[in-house]
Each structure stands twice: as structure tokens, then as C-alpha cells.
């Protein structure tokens, strides 16, 4: 029995992303495939762990999900919508952080969130304070302080607060644990737990497998732009539960399919 929900929130079908650059030494154009035929599916309620090494294509995939880049080939579907001209409407139901939080360093935390609230047309119903609280930012610590004076951990928390502001149905985090201290990692894990209980779907990419294994309910493995495999946490448990060993075994595979 498939323990995942039936509703598909995000689907990628044969997604490729090609970059061309001129090699000055040979004078020829070289084509690199950041993504080379990704097939994946995120269902409602998943805490989806995207696993892969540096340069595997995790960030590129997240950028395509977020609308920052367009696939060269293939299609993506978000909440059932696949028309590229209408995807931005569905993107109002998602939010997240890619690499580092995108914040205006010249504004305070409150101002950054207020800009976000105005952009999304959200009601002034205390959600800014709620988001700051969920992200573990105490008002006394950030009152009047410009973001440029924040520590890395505080910026990460503010990025999370910004992502939570619109109460999105799908959250995506690209390497969220990088730069966090142990307390920050614990807090992030607790936040994911709370989000899971409230039914939010989460996509997390990371190469910190031990931490990821404590959070995710299913995994996708990316290697050199290809999805080499997908597995639920339960199935992984049945196979011995060692995420790292399973990932290393997937590196050699050439095509994906849910185990």
C-alpha cells in the first residue's frame, strides 16, 4: 500500500536544463546539462529529501520549481498546472529558500517581511509577528537592527520567517542546514515536524544525510543531473535504513523509479 497521499503537488517530466558556454581555449561552444531528464513527483504531505552531491543538479531543479529558470526540455506541473504562462499563479501557494535567504540588507527584519506581505497582498493580521515567532526570532533581538548586521543563523531564520509568511502549501529549502549551529539544526528539525503535523509539504535538498534522515518521509537521489532513484522512508527502513549506503548504491543507477 502506498502510504503517500494521492494528490500530486509537483511533478517534473523529463526535465532538462542545458547551458552553453564558449571555451576560449578551443573556440568551441560546450554544452553542459545541469539536469538531464529528471522525473520526480512530490505528493501532498511529503517531507521530500532531495539527495545529491555538489553539482548534482539539486539547486537547478529548485530554481526551476521556483520559476527562476525555465527548463530547456520537459515539463513541470505545479498543483496540476503545466502551462508555463500560468505557473506563476500556482507559485503563490509555494515559497522557500534557495541557497541563502534573499533579504534586503538595508532594511530591518520587520521591513523585509512587511515588503513581502505587501507584495503578496496578505492581510495585516499579525502574521509578520507570527512568522518571526515560528522562525525563533525574538522581537527584542531584532528591533531596529538592519539585516546586514544579522548573524548567518539569524538571516537563515528570517528567511524561514519570510517563507512562512504566506502560509504556503509547499515549502522548499535548498541546503537549509548549512551554516546553522547545532541549536539551529535542532530548531529547524522541530519546525519541519510542526509543518508536517499541519499538513504542509516540504522539499529539502541536502547532502547532510544524517540530519536529512531524521526529517524526510521520502527521498529522491540526483546524480549528474539525473534522478537515479526515489524511495519512501518506510521502504528504506525495510532495506536496512542506511540512507548513505542506499545513496551510494544509487549513484551508479541510470534511471529512476519509486522503490
Amino acid at each position, binding site marked *: 500500500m502506498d502510504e503517500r497521499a494521492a494528490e500530486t503537488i509537483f511533478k517534473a517530466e523529463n526535465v532538462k536544463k542545458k547551458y552553453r558556454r564558449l571555451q576560449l581555449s578551443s573556440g568551441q561552444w560546450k554544452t553542459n546539462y545541469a539536469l538531464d531528464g529528471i522525473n520526480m513527483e512530490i505528493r501532498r504531505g511529503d517531507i521530500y529529501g532531495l539527495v545529491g552531491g555538489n553539482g548534482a543538479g539539486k539547486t537547478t531543479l529548485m*530554481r526551476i520549481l*521556483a*520559476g*527562476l*529558470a*525555465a527548463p530547456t526540455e520537459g515539463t513541470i506541473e505545479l498543483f496540476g498546472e503545466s502551462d508555463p504562462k500560468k505557473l*506563476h*499563479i*500556482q*507559485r*503563490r*501557494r*509555494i*515559497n*522557500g529558500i*534557495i*541557497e*541563502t535567504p*534573499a*533579504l*534586503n*540588507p*538595508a*532594511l530591518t527584519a520587520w*521591513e523585509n517581511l*512587511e*515588503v*513581502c506581505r*505587501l*507584495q*503578496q*497582498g496578505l492581510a495585516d493580521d499579525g502574521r509578520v509577528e507570527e512568522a518571526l515567532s515560528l522562525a525563533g526570532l525574538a522581537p527584542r533581538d531584532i528591533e531596529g537592527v538592519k539585516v546586514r548586521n544579522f548573524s548567518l543563523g539569524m538571516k537563515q531564520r528570517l528567511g524561514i520567517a*519570510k517563507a512562512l509568511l*504566506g502560509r*504556503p502549501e509547499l515549502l522548499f529549502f535548498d541546503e537549509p542546514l548549512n551554516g546553522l549551529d547545532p541549536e539551529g539544526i535542532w530548531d529547524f528539525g522541530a519546525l519541519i515536524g510542526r509543518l508536517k503535523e499541519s499538513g504542509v509539504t516540504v522539499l529539502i535538498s541536502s547532502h547532510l544525510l544524517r540530519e536529512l534522515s531524521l526529517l524526510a518521509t521520502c527521498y529522491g537521489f540526483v546524480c549528474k543531473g539525473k534522478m537515479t532513484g526515489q524511495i519512501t522512508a518506510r521502504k528504506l527502513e525495510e532495506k536496512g535504513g542506511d540512507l548513505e549506503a542506499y545513496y551510494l548504491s544509487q549513484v551508479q543507477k541510470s534511471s529512476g523509479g519509486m522503490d
Partner: protein
Amino acid sequence: MGKLIKAELFKLSRTFTYKALITFSTVIGIAFGTVVVRGGFTAAGIFWVAIMGTGFLYNAALISLFAADYIAGEFANRTFAAEIACGASREALFGAKAAVFFVGLLPLLFIYDIITIAVLTVQNGFGAAWNADTAVFIISRVLFSILCNFTMGACILLAAYLARSRLATVGIGAGGAYLLHQCCINEHNPVLLKLWQFTFVYQMDAVCSGRRAEPVPFTIVAISSLVGTAALLGAALLAFCRCDLK
């Protein structure tokens, strides 16, 4: 787009660089007005009305600095990416940004001139009767200034969207303006001069420098400015919609 414009106005009201540029323009206006009056400048306020908004290199520098922070800064901070990721369409985002950019340009460009006109008027009088003709003259000068500077603003806005870097925007904006200005003032070929007349560089130079026999007719200024601004904004929109963001 209304929500995005509201957010952009909020952002602009909190932007230190913009406030600093407004303050700078105010101080320069007061200082310049005071210095020229004490230096024996006897021109009346109406003289400055006639040349308002045509300080080509000064305006280019102000607009470049503003665009560098307000537009290119969004690429540097990756805040454009964040806005797109939560559902803003690139077209609406561009539209809101451009609208507030041009609204923000108005006080930036006119504060210096308004203060100088006020200082000269207080010291030397306005120099013209307050009647319908004077009102029409003032309106036509304001419109001329807005049209030319908006076209320059559109050029620099395009540079910001292409360069996506604060430093490059200032370099291309201010440096490019200087080069264009030099090319224009050193052009003597009558055929090329006919073409230059359709550019804001020539149109502003014709008013303030005295190098040209007469200013460019307002109709030509209006049409060339509107067409030029639309084309430049179209190019900037295309560049923004097609680029991959980090």
C-alpha cells in the same frame, strides 16, 4: 500589479540611498543657488525655468546611482528571485518596478532646479508676469524635462537589467552618458546632426549649452522620447523575462 506597486513604494520610502540622493540634491540646490547669487548672478527665476532639467551629466549621475541601488541591487540581493518564487509574474514585477522608478525620478531630478529657481526668484525676481503665457511656458519646460530625463532613465534602467550589478550600472549609466555627450557635442556632420536631434542628448544640450542654433521642436522631442522610452523599456522587459535568476 497594485500590490507590487504598494510594496515598491514602501521599499523606496525606506531606502537610504534614495533619501541620501534627495538630501544631496537639496543641499546642492541651496548651495548652488546661494553661491551664484552671492557671485553676482543677476538672472531671474524664469531663466532657470527655461533650462530646468537639462543638467545632462548631473542628472545621468543621479539616475545611475538611483538605478544601481533600486534595480541592480535587487539582482545582487536576489530579492527579484524571492518575489518571483512566491508568485509574482515577471511582467507585473517589471511594470511595478518601472512605475515606481519613474515616479521616484521626479523629485530626484526637480528638487535641485526648484530650489535654484526659488533662490534666484527671491534674490532677482521671477522675471516674467504671472499670466497664462508664463504658465504654458513653465508647463512646456517641465514636460520637456520629464520627457528627456525619462528617456535617459529608460536607458539606464535597461543598463541595470542587462548588467545586474550596481557598479556596472553606475559605470554604464554615468560613463555611457558622458561618452554620448562627448559624441554629440563633437558632431559636425550635418546629416548625423539631423539624426542626433532625435536623441535626448542633443535635445537637452540644445537648450542649456547655447551650442545649437535653436532648440528641437517640442513635437519631435515628444515623439522621439515616447518612442525611445517605449523601445528601451520593451528591451529591458525582454531581458528580464528571459534571464535565469540565481
